[in-house]
């Protein structure tokens, strides 16, 4: 129930993604034995991040198909308060490193879901120019699908992308200082456009 409470406590404005997925118990995956030690925790994750990979609200990121090492580092950062979130910190507080690795492994091995997002062409063009100026491909690669410690951005929910870019810019998210410096050099309209471009990929 912790996760349900946590999701309800999310204060950011949210809009439903197309075809939202409810965490219906009947749809829950049967977890392989190796995840036995984190089955309760994974159930908590599904409450917000979705059972089938699509989060219940677009403010929550897609985790399914995200890279293992990126997910593991984020969990570690939440626990160490290098990345802050009223929702996530209580979720990870009691996790061991091995449990974090298992959770990261589970999501990294799932398929990346489609969101059905279709962006505005003019905004997309503006966003592509902005990501080019930021040389984002140097780390996130040409298809913005990331690798290892660099997250996939392509097809992530637009709202989460914008919130994240904005959090970097305004130092609400502090666990990647080079990202903060880069986002600080863009205005809000650029960040909106970048989110539009990346969500549409």
């Amino acid at each position: 129930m912790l996760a349900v409470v946590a999701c309800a406590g999310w204060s950011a404005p949210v809009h439903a993604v197309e075809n939202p997925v409810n965490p219906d118990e009947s749809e829950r995956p049967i977890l392989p034995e190796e995840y036995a030690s984190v089955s309760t925790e994974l159930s908590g994750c599904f409450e917000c991040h979705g059972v089938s990979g699509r989060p219940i609200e677009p403010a929550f990121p897609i985790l399914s198909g995200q890279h293992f090492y990126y997910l593991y580092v984020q969990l570690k950062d939440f626990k160490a308060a290098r990345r802050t979130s009223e929702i996530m910190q209580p979720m990870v507080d009691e996790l061991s490193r091995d449990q974090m690795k298992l959770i990261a492994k589970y999501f990294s091995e799932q398929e990346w879901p489609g969101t059905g997002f279709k962006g505005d062409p003019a905004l997309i063009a503006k966003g592509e120019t902005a990501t080019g100026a930021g040389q984002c491909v140097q780390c996130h690669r040409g298809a913005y699908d990331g690798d290892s410690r660099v997250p996939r951005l392509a097809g992530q929910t637009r709202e989460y992308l914008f919130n994240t870019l904005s959090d970097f810019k305004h130092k609400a998210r502090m666990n990647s200082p080079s990202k903060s410096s880069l986002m600080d050099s863009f205005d809000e309209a650029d960040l909106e456009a970048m989110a539009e471009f990346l969500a549409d990929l």
Partner: protein
Amino acid sequence: MSKSAWKKMLTGVFAIAGFLAVGAFTAAAQEVQGGTLYGNMQTVTQDMLNRAAGDGNNFLHTNGNYEQTRYYPARQINVDNVKNLRPAWIFQTEIVESQETTPIVVNGIMYITTSFNHVYALNAKTGAQIWHYKHKMGPITTYCCGPNNRGVAAYGDKVYMGTLDAKLVALDAKTGKLVWEKQIADPELGYSETMAPSAVNGKILIGTNGGEYGIRGFVKAYDWATGDLLWTFNTIPENSVGVWAENDATGRNMKRDIAAEKAALKKLGDPYKTLGGGVWQNPAVDLERKRVYFVVGNPSPDLDGSIRPGDNLYTDSLVAVDLDTGKYVCHFQYIAHDVWDLDAVSPPILTQVRDANGNMVDGLLHGGKTGHVYIHNRDDCSLIRFSEAMVPQEDMWVLPTKDGQRMLPGANGGVEWSPMTVDENLGLAYAINLHQPMTYHVESSPYPEGKLWLGGAFKVIPTEEQWGNITAVDYNTGKIRWKVKTPQPMIGGIMATAGGLVFTGEGNGLFKAYDSATGNVLWSFQAGAGVNAPPASYTVDGKQYIVVGAGGNVQLNYKRGNNIIAFALPD
């Protein structure tokens, strides 16, 4: 090479030869040819490596030879007939991603690598695959600017590759099977490998990436047969402060606040543990002096000098070490306390140069990200001269600010990692250049434990035109002989041949041959993806080939592909 190492190498050769002699070995069509009357043709001996500069059949080093001239001695393809050059074969790899490999060719067998550390052995005459090795990548990799790999080193009966998860692997050249692998450094701390190793005297030399991640750089030497570590040279000494140099190599003031740096040094101590200084391009080897010469990359964090007081030795430097021991011999620092990431990357070239008194001396050339070719005396690493700037330089050295300061060249430099080439008959060095205006932003932050640590940001100015050059520089005078503009910034590498040609490719897919004396374009081919890898050449059965990878580039986001294309003249 040690006696025992030679013994092992020779034993291997004789064992295979003997095996063949009794007829117990049936070579499959797709296997590398083994022994002959003259020994095992796939065994790369030290003598072959030493003589590579005059070898018109093989291509044995990433940059052609130990001097790294990238000058190929065959002249079958030349200024008169290059217009007839056409693809002989195209090989498509499994990986559609940035392609920076230099094909290595040993007696008709070609070894190439791809992004994410695949290795292929191909029949160099037909392009047919012989074997394919796929590195089992660990879950943690940390790298900037693409999952690149620049090729193998060939030595004895093995080929060697560095991996993104910071390992050195040795493969059986005949089968592609893993012989041994060694963990070079911890990828979680920002170390990775993209450079091709170098092989010399029983040692496999390799540096490290990681200048954007707070590493402490090094060059290491491993035993070719066992993988045992023989020596390590740390590119960042425990005392990295230096002489508080106020001017760069060209004499321009770098606007350092020395008093503030001294105060920071007192407060913070020497920053050597996380000061960067990667070495990610091949060293040149001076066999006579028993030295290796390499260039060292930028200090970490790239843009924020406030927390790394001092000259940050030996970042942004040419360094020579003893081949046998790895001990320091000499260095020359181009930019002390760099806060622009305009470091030293393009591999150094050994050649004879005219010194300030007009005497020919053993020289060394380096194409700097500043846009100059630097000409050194190999004895003591000292600078003899520097060339005219090959790209626009504006507002050097304005200090980065939070809101960003425009300065040219941009942080990808005037010459990136792209190896240069020389034609010693013409006394010319050829470089490929970038013009990419950027703003430099600084923002201080503590080391984020293996995460990207730039100390700010570099930002391309999207409204300003970008372009590239191919530039021929007279290294005995520093004057530019000719320059050809290209529509996009250039990255990948260049090769000169005895046929009076230089070959290089562009991000738009064009691969071109230029007259090395004049810069006239004599031939071009549209490869369909960015040609951003260094070309190579070889000869099989009397036919000379030019070969290059066309897989695009991550750093400049040029169209990706997966082709290795070999060109030859019609029969």
